[in-house]
């Protein structure tokens, strides 16, 4: 069965904000404020097209409009569906560059660093000075 994300926008909005609300203390936006439903989630679903069918199937089991306790409703889907929905919503949220800038996450960078060998040697010499930490053993009768 083929699903159209536009048919789920109302559900996606309340589900996404139930999982990721805004936070005034840290200045982090909610999922909808960050653009999850219309901008980021389509990217996430394109990347993880393997999860898209189960994502939409799970969403279709939720009410169209936000229930009184939205987290309870999402949890009631069961562990597998909850995981699929929360993983894709959070995964979409963290595709946003501004969110990552606020978190100080530059992505998995290519680093070209030279070790400080003096520091490493000083560090391991302290460990070596404490002596061996293995048990030396005799050969057993079964040894060839």
């Amino acid at each position, binding site marked *: 069965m083929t699903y159209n994300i536009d048919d789920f926008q109302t559900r996606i909005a309340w589900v996404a904000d139930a999982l990721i609300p805004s936070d005034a203390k840290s200045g982090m936006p909610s999922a909808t404020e960050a653009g999850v439903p219309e901008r980021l989630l389509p990217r996430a679903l394109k990347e993880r097209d393997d999860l898209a069918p189960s994502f939409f199937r799970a969403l279709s089991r939720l009410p169209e409009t936000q229930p009184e306790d939205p987290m309870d409703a999402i949890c009631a889907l069961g562990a597998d569906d909850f995981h699929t929905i929360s993983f894709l919503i959070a995964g979409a949220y963290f595709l946003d560059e501004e969110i990552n800038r606020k978190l100080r996450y530059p992505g998995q960078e290519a680093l070209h660093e030279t070790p400080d060998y003096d520091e490493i040697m000083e560090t391991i010499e302290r*460990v070596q000075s*404490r002596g061996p930490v293995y048990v030396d053993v005799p050969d057993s009768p079964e040894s060839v």
Partner: protein
Amino acid sequence: MTNESRPTVYDVVIVGAGPSGAVAAKRLAEEGMSVICLEQGGYPDYTKLRHSGLEFELTKQQYFAANPNRRRAPADYPINVSDSDIEPLMWNGVGGSSVLYAAAWHRLKPSDFRVRTVDGIADDWPLNYAELEPFYARVENDFAVSGVGGDPAYPPGFDIPLPPFPLGAMERKFATAHDRLGWHWWPGSNSIATVKHNGLLPCVRRGACVWGCFDGAKASVDRTHWPTCLKLGVKLVQNARVLRVETGSDGLATGVTYVDRETGLTHFQPGRIVIVSANGLGTPRLLLNSASNDHPNGLANSSGLVGKRLMMHPYGTVSGLFDDFFENWQGPYGQRAYSLEFAETRKETNFYRGAKWQLMGMGGPLASVGTWPWGSNGDVWGENFHATVQKRFGRSAYWGIMAEDLPSEDNMVSLDPAVTDAEGMSAVKITYKASQNTMDLLDFNLARAAESMKEAGAYEVSGTPLMRETGWHILGTVRMGNDPRTSVVDSFGRSHDVSNLFIMDGSVMPTSGAVNPTGTVTALALRNSEAIIENRRLQPVSTAAEALKVGL
């Protein structure tokens, strides 16, 4: 349907293009032996990994998922885990599980070869540390092991061929903490190149080690060994599901029967020697599936031990939260440092043997709301979401606790005839329960690791014992030993029952040790290969009518 054309006879038929199969293929081909390797999968497609963009975390588990029951790639086979505390992880393709391993590299300690002698439990190995040491050194060069030599957790002589990674803020916290505690700690040793070496490029620390290393720095054998093997003339047949090792009326192996997964055709590949390197699940699966009138309980199974004594290194985690922000998401993912302080049996504890601790990367923001290494993530959503991310991302560390697993015949791999793979071969079922010794060992080590976390400055510590999807190391199911009544293969991997059948993978290990086994498994494969070369003139080969018919 069977293809009737007469195939070329090879000196050696190898089943499995993973680390052991690759080490054996390369060494035997160097000596001029003709070698063919049948591999059920193909080469990994590293372009499937979005390693450098913000999509990395979202996509890393898609193509390169470690759990075959989740991945369900065409080369995978079903594994019934309903009666197992731990789920096995693997990669079925050229490179084997070295494509996905974290590349933490170790040797076993001398006592690991002498568990019966030292502790009065389990078994001694039919060889010792000194006998394996020269082979360890050779594979460590081939596998581009980087780190720092001189670790006092090993006898003198464990030199590391490539230079180490830099120490980061995370490593420094634990180095000074363990100085204060008086506990062992050592910079991580990894089969990851830090300088250009053996076809590998220097690691740039993107932390994608366990999801396929796009940058070409991790020593997976599709990169380190197979290019050389092919130049030496080894024939590598991809997408070949081996169904059976065949034997002649003289009891010796004549070759293997396999299905070409792309054409669906069944072929017989004759060989003078057969080496099975299909991992601790795939190898007993193949031997059990090779049952015949002459071998009703499976091939090479007169001891009844094929599939028994499964060990999987039960694994727990201890995570800590810190006030300061430090880089904890870059690589190497698998082992930035380790401790073997509690790896030996201690008089004051209520269990035998011990554990390795490895200080590992934490991942990016998406990982901070996942289950690894945090355990349940049920309470991180909604109003807790941002606080959780703020607390964990860039402000956390964890010790992975790898417990030595002791052998038990109750823990086993068996055929699951009710389920077959796409080629009609019986699937496997795992029966595995962590022992009380394991649970006590994990409890003790989690408590000590929590002390380490607090000493390093963590203001909050949490632990998760016995995580389920952690069966990277599948060991013990085709045990080696000197006595054919109590072991399947001898100390050189040769079957006691079928003298031209060799097993080379982690299934031969009589005990597990507490460390990542690839170093030991590949050192054994190299040692066994040298023995095959040395004895090749005396090697029995089938002369049965069936063998003569196919040109052996």
